[in-house]
């Protein structure tokens, strides 16, 4: 039986247009759920002594967030399918996809719709996180608190950090892995489409919950949420905990789904040795997400109990230990850093062969590098705790593992060098962003060697050096890879061409001012400027002013991208070619726009994705 027809037969009832379940019903039911939850929490807490001491009802707030989550998911229709099946009725979740913009605002199980939802959904929160950075840099124009009160400044720092970590985790895996992994492996859908929809719809909810912290005096801990300070904080901390739990759940589910898809949904002929390198990057990242996020959830759950139920997991005076949180958090936190890096490796190695017109040099080495990073990243977390006072004997071990991780990372550089050498390099916008990735990641990676060396880390730990280091790897790496992927794949996703002139202006402004912003911050760290301060030594003002001004231009370059997006998608609408880059990738062999069920018949993979210049190379797949 034709699979597309099969899918249609199990579709059920559906309300017309605006009456159906969508973002609006989700928001309304989420709000109602929140107030119901806080009301129940208020009833439960009557007479409890800690309310008097703290003047806030954390139980009520957490129950409110629980109610909001249930309302939000119910408002989108996530419970229709399980409830129908429980009651023995036919499944009510619609499977056929309608055209038009409304499908992007409701529950959809089409991986292509979810990819677009992720692209814009995460983009909105990335924009908010970026605005927070601009506000932070405004404060740092002067050495004393001028622009914002100290508490607001810390909230901005926390919102920027948490928002960026949460959203960049989904920055490549959300839009591009969900959209392109099924296309690249010759599948009609992800292995678990309803789970895929859930992973997306948890993301904006997490962003909104995090932003709600501003209604409860914010939170003072930055994105790490270290325990004794988190326990002391006002109710905004509850929003941090709940939103991070939501995103942790989303990441875990997304990882499991992507892994299941890659293992089970590959088209015939797509052996592991032919798998596109981006898919390998996604697979290894998924392993990290599945294994590390449960630890984060456990850590946050204990933090939640410490705050709401008067337990003492992290409170030394009650018999707990702040080190427990630090260890659990960084056991998630360091793999998280590679959750951000590995998809970027995949993207740039996917793009380089297309624009160097050469096969990916050392394919197996690249896969080995990704696996090496995946494995080692679980054995390095205590380098965040070198001076914290735990396990001084283990420091050489963590120093060694941390430095070892630069070996598999170095493989990726060798792959790039081998691929461009003797190639026919075309400097298109995706290629420019990919090449910039290598420069930025080089600086980011090598500055990490300073931090892995304990004697040097004693100088640099907790200083702006660290801050410059991870902005080089995350912004210089992941965000540049995101833009490479955007300019590379958006024509396939949207069916329209982006304006190249604006794109090049965007690239050059972003690349130059990214480096002008963040390179001086290594010096700020070396000159004894701690992270997350709103007050600094007056002698560093010139340096900080320079950085702030460059950061504003960097922020402006993002506006050029947004303008380009709006201009190209809304006004110009120049239709994209089927394969504008002359890529051998399977996703480019499909028509634009991609048909609803991707492939009329599952293709058979007959050739390598990267066989550029191979005489008589077979087509990558037989498409019928």
């Amino acid at each position: 039986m034709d699979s597309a027809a099969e899918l249609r037969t199990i579709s059920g009832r559906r309300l017309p247009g605006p009456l159906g379940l969508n973002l609006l019903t989700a928001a309304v039911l989420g709000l109602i759920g929140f107030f119901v939850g806080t009301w129940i929490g208020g009833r439960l807490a009557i007479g409890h002594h800690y309310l008097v001491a703290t003047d806030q009802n954390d139980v009520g707030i957490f129950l409110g967030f629980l109610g909001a989550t249930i309302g939000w998911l119910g408002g989108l229709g996530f419970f229709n399918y399980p409830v129908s099946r429980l009651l023995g009725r036919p499944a009510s979740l619609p499977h056929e996809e309608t055209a038009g913009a409304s499908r992007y605002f409701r529950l959809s199980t089409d991986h292509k719709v979810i990819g677009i939802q992720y692209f814009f959904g995460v983009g909105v929160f990335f924009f908010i996180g970026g605005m927070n950075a601009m506000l932070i840099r405004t404060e740092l124009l002067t050495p004393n608190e001028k622009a914002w009160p100290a508490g607001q400044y810390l909230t901005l720092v926390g919102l920027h950090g948490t928002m960026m970590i949460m959203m960049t985790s989904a920055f490549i895996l959300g839009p591009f892995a969900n959209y392109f992994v099924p296309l690249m492996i010759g599948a009609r859908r992800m292995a678990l489409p309803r789970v895929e929809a859930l992973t997306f719809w948890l993301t904006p909810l997490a962003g909104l919950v995090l932003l709600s912290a501003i209604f409860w005096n914010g939170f003072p801990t930055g994105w790490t949420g270290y325990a004794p300070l988190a326990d002391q904080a006002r109710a905004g901390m509850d929003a941090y905990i709940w939103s991070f739990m939501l995103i942790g759940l989303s990441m875990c589910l997304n990882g499991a789904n992507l892994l299941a898809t890659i293992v089970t949904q590959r088209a015939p002929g797509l052996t592991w040795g032919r798998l596109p390198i981006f898919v390998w990057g996604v697979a290894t990242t998924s392993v990290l997400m599945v294994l590390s996020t449960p630890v984060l959830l456990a850590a946050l759950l204990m933090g939640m109990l410490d705050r709401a139920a008067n337990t003492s997991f992290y409170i030394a005076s009650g018999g707990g230990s702040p080190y427990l949180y630090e260890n659990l958090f960084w056991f998630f936190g360091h793999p998280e850093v590679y959750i951000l890096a590995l998809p970027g490796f995949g993207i740039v190695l996917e793009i380089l062969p297309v624009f160097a017109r050469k096969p990916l040099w050392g394919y197996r080495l690249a896969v080995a590098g990704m696996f090496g990073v995946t494995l080692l990243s679980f054995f390095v977390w205590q380098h965040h705790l070198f001076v914290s006072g735990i396990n001084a004997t283990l420091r050489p071990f963590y120093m060694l593992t941390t430095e070892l991780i630069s070996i598999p990372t170095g493989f990726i550089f060798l792959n790039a060098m081998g691929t461009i050498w003797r190639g026919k390099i075309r400097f298109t916008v995706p290629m420019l962003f990919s090449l910039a990735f290598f420069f930025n990641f080089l600086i980011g990676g090598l500055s990490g060697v300073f931090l892995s060396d304990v004697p040097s880390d004693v100088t640099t730990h907790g200083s702006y050096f660290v801050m410059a280091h991870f902005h080089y790897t995350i912004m210089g790496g992941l965000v540049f890879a995101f833009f490479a992927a955007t300019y590379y794949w958006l024509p396939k996703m949207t069916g329209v061409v982006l304006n190249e002139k604006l794109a090049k202006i965007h690239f050059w402004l972003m690349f130059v001012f990214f480096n002008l912003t963040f390179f001086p911050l290594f010096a700020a760290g070396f000159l004894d400027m701690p992270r997350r301060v709103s007050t600094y030594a007056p002698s560093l003002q010139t340096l900080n002013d320079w950085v702030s001004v460059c950061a504003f231009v960097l922020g402006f370059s993002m506006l050029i991208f947004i303008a380009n997006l709006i201009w190209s998608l809304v006004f110009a609408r120049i239709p994209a070619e089927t394969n504008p880059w002359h890529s051998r990738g399977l996703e480019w062999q499909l028509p634009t726009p991609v048909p609803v069920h991707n492939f009329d018949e599952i293709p058979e993979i007959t050739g390598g994705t990267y066989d550029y210049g191979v005489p008589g190379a077979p087509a990558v797949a037989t498409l019928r």
Partner: protein
Amino acid sequence: MTTAPAPQSDDRHLWTAAVAWLVLTAIAVPLIVFVLGPHLPPGRMSAEASDQTSANIVLTAICVPIVLLIVIFFGYAFVVFRARGTAIEDGPPDFGDARAQVLWLILTSVIVISLAVWGTYTLFWSAHGAGGGQGPNPVAKPSDASSALQVQVIGQQWNWTYRFPGYGGVETAHLEIPVGRDVEFLVTSLDVTHSFWAYELGVKADAVPGTENIAYVHPRQTGSFSIRCAELCGLWHGHMFQTGEVVTSAQFASWIAGQQHAEAPNLKYLPGYSGVYFPEPTRRAG
């Protein structure tokens, strides 16, 4: 015996890039060591700071040639191998080279492992903990650790205070330590996690409630050093700033005697000297 094959055109490119890299490295490394090096932090005020400075110089001197290698290789390829014209042409179908990959693996492994060995040597033997906090049971102690001057550093929102167990547990709001004598910092906190960062001394140790975090330092020069908090501790984190002094033994003796005299009336209100403190209220104040 076979004669070497005539160099192919891309071999020539490889050699040109290699020579450019060698020349630039030969220029850059001495500049880093002799011109930039003396300005790298945290300076030479203590034995630990000195080792950290050396570490920073060596790491910079290793990293810059690596940056040069990648940048020259990429830059050279951009110029020589850029596609000319608009026609889409393919490059040679080169899938990899086992020898180059093994060479790369060996080179990176040697650099990385020797860095780890050298870091371990500095950490344990040459700089006894490198000025970092080693927790309550330090493993890398200076040889005369038992005669070191003990200074308890107490982090609290949002200031540092110091108690001297060898001087009746007197608590001071300002830090002075003598030159030429090992100092044992016993770092703890009254509320949340702070991090005691004496920048020029090369000392950094987290102040964690309920934990005695020990760091050693051996000051070699007199002068002032800045003290900051390196772990986010709440509202006035950036204001946990003081200036400490390394002074001569005689100056230290007279300073601590003066402090003991001035603080004597306050001492009876303090809790007895202890490694850790749990002040009331132990729960969140809101």
